């Protein structure tokens, strides 16, 4: 099963991945809502997945795909723990704005 796609479009997939990463980083930096910040982390992880899958399909080696499976698992774990922490912070401060979490001391 060979998929034919023009090589220039493969280059464009790099630009797509980098744009996704930059957008995720931008959101990570500018948004105040902690939940949206976590979503932006997911965007960055997805851009890395895109690069890994692209390289794997280009070289025909399955290692990239396996790494993507691991990355997706870790992403799910990160989302679950991060959202649990946000829930606790909301209980503590009644808000999820990043600016209100300034002290480490409860």
């Amino acid at each position, binding site marked *: 099963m*060979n998929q034919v796609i023009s090589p220039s479009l493969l280059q464009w997939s*790099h630009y797509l991945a980098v744009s996704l990463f930059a957008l995720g980083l931008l959101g990570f930096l500018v948004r105040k809502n902690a939940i949206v910040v976590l979503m932006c982390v997911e965007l960055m992880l997805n851009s890395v997945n895109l690069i890994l899958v692209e390289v794997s399909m280009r070289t025909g080696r399955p290692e990239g795909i396996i790494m993507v499976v691991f990355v997706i698992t870790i992403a799910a774990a990160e989302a679950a*723990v991060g959202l649990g922490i946000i829930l606790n912070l909301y209980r503590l401060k009644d808000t999820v704005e990043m600016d209100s979490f300034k002290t480490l001391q409860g």
Partner: protein
Amino acid sequence: MREGFFIFFSLLTIACALGVVFAKNAVYSAFSLVLSFFGLAAIYVLWGATFIAMVQILIYTGAIVVLFLFVVMLLDIAKGPPTISTGWWMAALTGATVWVFSVLLLRTLNKSGLPVPTGTLAAVDIRTISKLLFSEYLWPFEVLSIFMLALIVAAFALARPEKGETP
């Protein structure tokens, strides 16, 4: 034809990522995230990586985004003031710089390291992946399962109400 689909889904992904970053309502952000992940899954299908496309839809949109939406609706934070913080231009500059340098990096990679694309993509089928996952990558796989067990305990401990507090 296939190129057209690729361009369409790339634009969809980018537009929805913009939606995630700039939507004022967190619920809209989550739905944009769903569409963005669907665009990526469609691109994986175009490349022949059907297993990853399936996992992407099942886990990312089926589990992770649902978790996000659940927390957003649980906390009732959809309303509230606009959410862009003050250091906006600094962050935009950072993003643009990262973009430019990453493009430079990828160009260099394309010139030297990676194999030149020949126009045909070798499909990696699910049989190969599963064989490798349970032979050569068995150790990472098992470590990951123990990690997931720890995750379940951690998530439960984090989300549990305090003593004396009604959930």
